[in-house]
């Protein structure tokens, strides 16, 4: 994981979100698409997304930082992950 750059991280997270949370194949999701505030990922599902990030990037994100705002887009998620990779 240490060798993965930010764009690769975004692609990884985006693909995961599409695969796990989006039922309709025609729904277009980008790195800027609001995930929480648009209802694609609800507050209960955020926990599984958090576990995915912690497993994949071998990090621990404090629950106080795992807010709906921080998880709202792929961009903001990766920014959060980057804080704990360093």
């Amino acid at each position, binding site marked *: 994981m240490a060798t993965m750059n930010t764009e690769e991280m975004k692609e990884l997270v985006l693909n995961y979100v599409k695969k*796990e949370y989006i039922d*309709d194949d025609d729904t277009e999701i980008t790195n800027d698409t609001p995930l*929480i*505030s648009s*209802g*694609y990922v*609800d507050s*209960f599902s955020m926990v*599984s997304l958090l576990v995915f990030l912690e497993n994949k990037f071998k990090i621990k994100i404090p629950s106080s930082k795992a807010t709906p*705002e921080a998880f709202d887009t792929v961009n903001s998620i990766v920014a959060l992950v980057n804080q704990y990779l360093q």
Partner: protein
Amino acid sequence: MSNIGSYEERLKNFDWSIAAKELEYKDGDIINIGWYCSDRICRKGNADKVALYYKGFGGTEKKYTFNDVRLAGNTIGSLLKKTGVVNEDRVCLFMDRIPELYFSFLGILKIGAIVQPLFSAFGDESLFVRLENAQTRAIITQKKHLPKVRKIQDKLPFLEFIIVIDALDGKELKAKEIAFNLEKAVPVEDLDVFPTKAESPSVLHYTSGTTGQPKGVKHVHYSLISQYLTTKWVLDLQEHDIYWCTADPGWVTGTSYGIIGPWSLGITQCVLDSGFSAQSWYQFIEQYRITVWYSAPTAIRSLMKAGDEIIRNFDLSCLRHLASVGEPLNSEAVIWSEKNFGMPFLDTFWQTETGSIMITNYPGMKVKPGSMGKPFPGITGTVLDAKTFKPLQGSGKIGLIAFKPGWPSMMRTYWKNEEKYKEKFVNGWYLSGDRASIDNEGYFWFIGRDDDVINTGGHLVSPFEVESALLEYPAVGESAVVAKPDEINMEVVKAFVTLKPGFTPSKDLELEIMNFIRKKLSSVAMPQEIEFVDKLPKTRSGKIMRRVLHAKEWGEEIGDISSLEND
């Protein structure tokens, strides 16, 4: 002046005929909730009044008058009739909180069919068991939820019509699927409203119990009497109010008080169809000048977590009355809302089975933060001794919350499960399944549930249902599901799992199991934590002792474990 005026005065000579008279209903008349919530409001001169302000994903905004609502209900009802749906057929609503959901609700009722609202986040298994139990004949859904319906429809021989309200055209649809677009449909001006009577079935909501599959709670059109009056007296809705009920109509609050209550009173209401964020919620209140706000403790605690500073970025001076439902409202939340909004959230207690508010705090009545309040006029509520099922005498004693049957919105049965329904009544009392005490001033104080059902964020989750689903995952040997304390949701689902030989506990396996349950049941039922254990505590007869695990999670005394299996 509040609608209820003095609670004490209302208790004197109370009769449900107060509501019947205001609704101009007499015993034996036709009573149809769909008509009362749209046609009647138009006939009373409010056809042009705004019924619904809607704000959806990406900021889409729409506005509908009561006449628009009437026409939309007619149009959808007419479509259903043309497809062959008849009175008492079950028609499922499986949609996000879009306007068509609200209009379809009325349209289904207008033709005498039974509405079966289901939470659109349900996974295919949760959807299947509810549709199978109800022998649902038609489902109205969106394209985005169609994959879940398609996955199970072959196992549902009674499901004949799948109406997709946002399919671009019919080409992408398969057998049984019907494309419908409300905006393009020719509005139906006149629809023969089915002559439903007081005991005609209206709504079928599903609720979870400790054991067995979810139960379909059958309500009737006469429930309107309770829903109308409780909305008027507890939520205090008045002619010029702008009302926001944050509940999804997949749950009973979203229909009793998110459709029937406000619209039978001809009140303008708002719907925000997006995920939660403090910013978007406060902005919504400010934008639509919302005056009465009915929400849930989980949401209130999330707003508290977002901090007080953000509140000052918005003009929320429009708010005049706040209420809460779904789980106990802790005293901190009441005090916080008084500090930040200048008024407390008033707790309301009721259930899917009761159909309307039973115990609550009233405008003008002294609020004791953390208390459930007092029974609604016309409701006889008490706490019963858990062994004798007789009312406890004296204040402060903890017992089972129970009500004298007979209020208008009481469930009429559990769908195809009369036996379970009868079990809810003992010694002439309806047993709520919750425990409380009553103080010396008659205020009820919530203690907790009397069973293993998990109340997470106001949603009831059956441990049995989650455990059954877990067993379908190949690596899982046994499981026990209990509630775990949670700062925001009060409780969340936690699973203790033993693995079959050849499988090893890992964080990746935990994630796989979580996602399996989320897709199969729902995100609400997904364990927020999975603890892999070597074995589960059991009685000597082999029954898993959930209470031992529950006590461990809550730091409580385990109690009598004499029946616990020894090594």
